């Protein structure tokens, strides 16, 4: 058998693309999934695509999920591809998250936090038992769920924005004092990561990193390849109002809002051995959409990489180069799946070398046998 370079397959590729599309409709008479349904009924998956795609475009994220048959990596890839075709019109002013309109807010550090703890929508207390009634959910029953929950809504007298736990701790001198830094952040969409990179590059890379990749590296730290030992100071989910200048008046106005998750972890204090007062150390995580695993994992990695920068990396999760070059889902998926593309030439080269090596081996064996 010989191995040669080939070309062709255009018709097969075209048919494969048609088949992939047909797969959505084959074998059933169900209606096509509406974009709105994906956005509303799969908000967690949808949010993951928003954050890993790095573009907060809810409609296109839902379309990407539909088009990719529910593959979040492919869907995020589509958002990235789309964004690369769009002009950059602006950079927003710096947004602070104190003004987030929260739907969930918890702390694992204190039970009594200013404003209180609100669980909001969470699967944390579910028993992971199937609800078989959802297999065949009647439209009326489905509509009644929302009606039932919305009944007797209280007036919006309660605030939806609250002070932050870390600010209170900082006020008590338990956290390092920090001065706002207004330097130009690193733009990972325009510049490659050349190490060492500033923290803004780390945060931006992790904000659009793949959830599983971030989790795996953070988990290695949690299990013992590191010593962050985090406590979730505050975990928030809510809508951040986006302010942009009015084209005529220049006044900042609200142009929309983004759903985001934010987490601050408090890690062990460090006694620096200097005259500085020992204080807790901190890590920060944030991403588009409702994705608590990602925000927590990012906060742990932020802290572990800061430790790595201070003491030198002692394990993979403290090494910014190791972490940041392995958490991007689009890059890692692309590298992984490229292996299934034709490698006929390189593999033929491998074969040639193997056969040459085998011939040499055979010759040596023969020489050894002849010598006996």
């Amino acid at each position: 058998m010989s191995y040669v370079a080939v070309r062709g397959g255009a018709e097969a590729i075209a048919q494969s693309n048609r088949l992939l599309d047909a797969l959505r409709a084959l074998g059933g008479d169900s209606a096509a999934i509406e974009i709105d349904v994906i956005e509303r009924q799969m908000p967690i998956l949808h949010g993951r695509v928003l954050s890993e795609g790095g573009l907060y475009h809810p409609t296109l994220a839902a379309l990407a999920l539909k088009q990719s048959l529910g593959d979040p990596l492919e869907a995020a890839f589509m958002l990235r591809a789309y964004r690369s075709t769009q002009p950059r019109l602006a950079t927003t002013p710096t947004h602070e998250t104190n003004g987030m309109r929260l739907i969930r807010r918890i702390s694992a550090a204190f039970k009594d936090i200013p404003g209180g703890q609100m669980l909001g929508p969470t699967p944390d207390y579910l028993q992971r038992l199937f609800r078989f009634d959802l297999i065949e959910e009647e439209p009326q029953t489905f509509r009644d769920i929302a009606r039932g929950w919305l009944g007797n809504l209280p007036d919006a007298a309660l605030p939806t924005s609250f002070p932050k736990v870390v600010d209170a701790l900082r006020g008590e001198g338990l956290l390092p004092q920090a001065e706002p830094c207004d330097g130009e952040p690193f733009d990972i969409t325009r510049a490659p990561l050349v190490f060492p990179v500033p923290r803004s590059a780390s945060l931006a890379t992790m904000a659009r990193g793949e959830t599983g990749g971030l989790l795996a590296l953070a988990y290695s730290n949690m299990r013992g390849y590191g010593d962050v030992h985090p406590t979730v100071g505050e975990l928030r989910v809510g809508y951040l109002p986006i302010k942009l200048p009015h084209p005529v008046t220049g006044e900042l106005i609200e142009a929309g809002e983004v759903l985001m998750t934010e987490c601050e972890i408090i890690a062990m204090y460090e006694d620096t051995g200097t005259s500085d007062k020992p204080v807790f150390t901190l890590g920060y995580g944030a991403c588009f959409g409702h994705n608590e695993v990602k925000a927590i994992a990012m906060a742990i990695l932020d802290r572990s990489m800061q430790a790595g920068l201070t003491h030198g990396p002692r394990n993979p999760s403290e090494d910014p180069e190791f972490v940041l070059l392995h958490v991007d889902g689009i890059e890692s998926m692309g590298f992984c799946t490229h292996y299934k593309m034709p490698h006929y030439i390189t593999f033929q080269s491998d074969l040639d070398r193997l056969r040459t090596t085998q011939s040499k081996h055979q010759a040596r064996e023969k020489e050894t046998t002849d010598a006996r």
Partner: protein
Amino acid sequence: MTTPIPPRSLWMRAFAAAESDRVLALAGRLAIEHGATHRSAPRAGLALLRLRESVMLDTFYLGEIPVTTARVALLGRDGLHVEGGAVVMDDDVEFAAALAVLDGVLAHGLAGAAEARELLDEGLAQIERVANVRAAMLSRTKVDFSLMAEAGDDNRA
């Protein structure tokens, strides 16, 4: 008696929350009525979202958002041109241009301002409805802690 008009900084969010078909219809009519022209071509693209993180107060880019801007000139009462503008997290230039027309009409009290105000109020009411739902998400799930010794076997939320 009508309530005072909210500040212009809130109009974009309110108009965007109103029914989009009605926004487009009213703005289309008012654009013709006031000889609307684009002061600059509406543009759709992206903006980097700059965020200040809360532990070391560094800034970084959380990601990108779609942004569309529009700026229109309208013929005012005295024959002079006045301007309206819009910037919205969307990529629909037609919608942004419509918002700019309503912004200009309402800001300068042109004919049709009352109808624009109605749409504004509808949008504000919709925003309030959403705010009520979000507030309920918080209030209904607020944790009522108690010490275990006090609570006995009653595992209240």
